[in-house]
């Protein structure tokens, strides 16, 4: 069973102002379902990152509505949006964005710390999340001591440690070699299918297609095609 966790309806976004104003998104509607891994693909400048920012509650749309786990982002101020991100969304970034001065365990724990979870259980949850991504032995390692693949797995652990319903990943395999990219994708697919989360991955990489339940193609600020690939959707 799939169920909608994130819904964007007729979302438009204008960037810049005056003569420099650009319509980055032109009425995009998209639903992310729990238990489903969705790929968002499109050429550079097609609006992928803008859409990801809006779905991730980092930007508010110029028009249209976004609902995250039933909560509308319309009229929300930056602190309300931060709360939605904190409670419902985990992020995985292309350049990992780990804190170089913190250990792997502390990097993961940070996602709980910002939610106010500071008890001993936060440490246990961080270790558990690192174990889930196959890094139980790297708890004390600093990002500089980890390979790119390991760093991305720490970033995934950070994204899931707070048990979010939605995971948004921006080019998570772009900085990795093929083998590490496949390993990271297996973890993200597992997060979607085994834990019932909605996972959206922005990518250019066609090698990720086998992991997708659904592929959404975006061009020039519009969704031009959607493919259902996963067994769950058929």
């Amino acid at each position, binding site marked *: 069973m799939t169920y909608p966790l994130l819904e964007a309806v007729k979302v438009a976004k204008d960037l810049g102002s005056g003569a420099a104003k650009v319509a980055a998104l032109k009425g995009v509607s998209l639903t992310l379902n729990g238990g489903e891994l969705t790929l968002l693909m499109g050429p550079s400048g097609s609006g992928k990152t803008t859409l990801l920012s809006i779905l991730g509650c980092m930007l508010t749309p110029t028009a249209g509505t976004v609902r995250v786990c039933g909560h509308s982002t319309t009229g929300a101020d930056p602190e309300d949006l931060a709360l*939605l991100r904190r409670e419902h969304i985990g*992020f995985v970034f292309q350049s990992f964005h780990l804190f170089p001065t913190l250990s792997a365990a502390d990097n993961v724990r*940070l996602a709980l710390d910002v939610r106010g979870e500071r008890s001993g259980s936060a440490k246990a949850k961080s270790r558990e999340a690192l174990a889930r991504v196959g890094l139980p032995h790297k708890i004390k390692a600093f990002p500089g001591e980890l390979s790119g693949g390991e760093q991305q797995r720490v970033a995934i652990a950070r994204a899931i440690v707070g048990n979010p319903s939605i995971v948004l990943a921006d080019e998570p395999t772009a900085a990795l070699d093929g083998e590490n990219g496949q390993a990271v994708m297996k973890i993200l697919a597992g997060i979607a299918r085994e834990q019932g989360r909605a996972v959206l991955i922005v990518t250019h990489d066609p090698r990720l297609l086998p992991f997708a339940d659904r592929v959404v193609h975006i061009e020039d600020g519009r969704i031009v095609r959607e493919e259902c690939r996963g067994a769950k959707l058929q």
Partner: protein
Amino acid sequence: MPLVFTLAFRNLFHDRLRFIATVIGIVFSIVLVTVQMGLYLGFGRTVTTMIDHASADLWIMPQGTKCFEDPSLLDMRERYRALAVNGVAEAIPVVIGFADWRMPSGATTPVFVIGSDLRAGGLQPWNVVEGQIEALSTPRAVAVDRSYFDRLGISGIGATAEIRQQLVRVAVVTNGIRSFTTTPFVFMDIDRARAHTGVPSGKATFLLVRLSPNTDKAAVRRQLLSNISDVEVLTPAEFRERSRTFWLFSTGAGAALFAGALLGVIVGTVIVAQTLYSSTKEHLTEFATLRAIGSSRRYIYAVIVCQALLNAIIGFSIAAIIGETIVQLTAATALPIVITQGLMIGLFLLTVVMCIGSAMAAIVQVTRIDPAIVFSR
């Protein structure tokens, strides 16, 4: 350990050079403020040394007297009017004035003469290290401080010199009675003081009033003011405050000290603000990541304020050690730097306020942060 503290601590120590520059800035600033405020306190104490060591319940002085060193004169008839007031046990005259001290070599130096009735003991030298106070009753006897031996061209007890062409002989030596004006104090019997300063025999600078036991000081003061015209009657605390106010504020000395302290605060604030701002700018992507993963602004402010507090604690601790060393080094000088417990607490609070105030620029920068930049970096 809370992660906010860990992050702040690691951010701070990540760039050691910048951290050292920040701490030097804070230390420089706080030491400067410490020295200025310590001088202010030291000066405030030094200018009231004579009042502190006088044995008086009330001071009678000519109207408009600004400080202890003000040489205005009272008529000695006022002494008898004072003694006539019920509750006044003694009214001891004191004479002060500047004079020239001529050394055996013929060179001269100005001195500040203090004369009082030695039998009554109104204002006598203290910290006597050589000779006896009683020796000041002998002809030509004076007391000087040993820190002024070179200045006065003498070597100790028995040395002679001239004041107003009259021979004086050192009979008592003290230790640590130093003048903030750097003019040496010379204690002597009141009659000789009059002769050496040109004060007529029927005049005095102050009358030190001692009250009988269980006397109402306020009532005596009112009675003195009604009995004696053109004088002021002050308690030692009031006279101290008046002298301090005159020297610190009427002369501009206090303003100069405060201006120096203010300069220190400004320099410190600018240095800490600049380094915190550049540190925040360098870690902007990290702060954007924190924001992206859902941290509140308050959480990020806590990291920055924590960095500022760490700067404050480390910088203040070093400044306090340097300040204490300066206090030790200046203890025996004419103008010692005084650091009280209250001043230390005030300086610590000032350091904290300065560092947190400096964090404002960094906080404003973080307030404008766009979490979406994490997708483009």
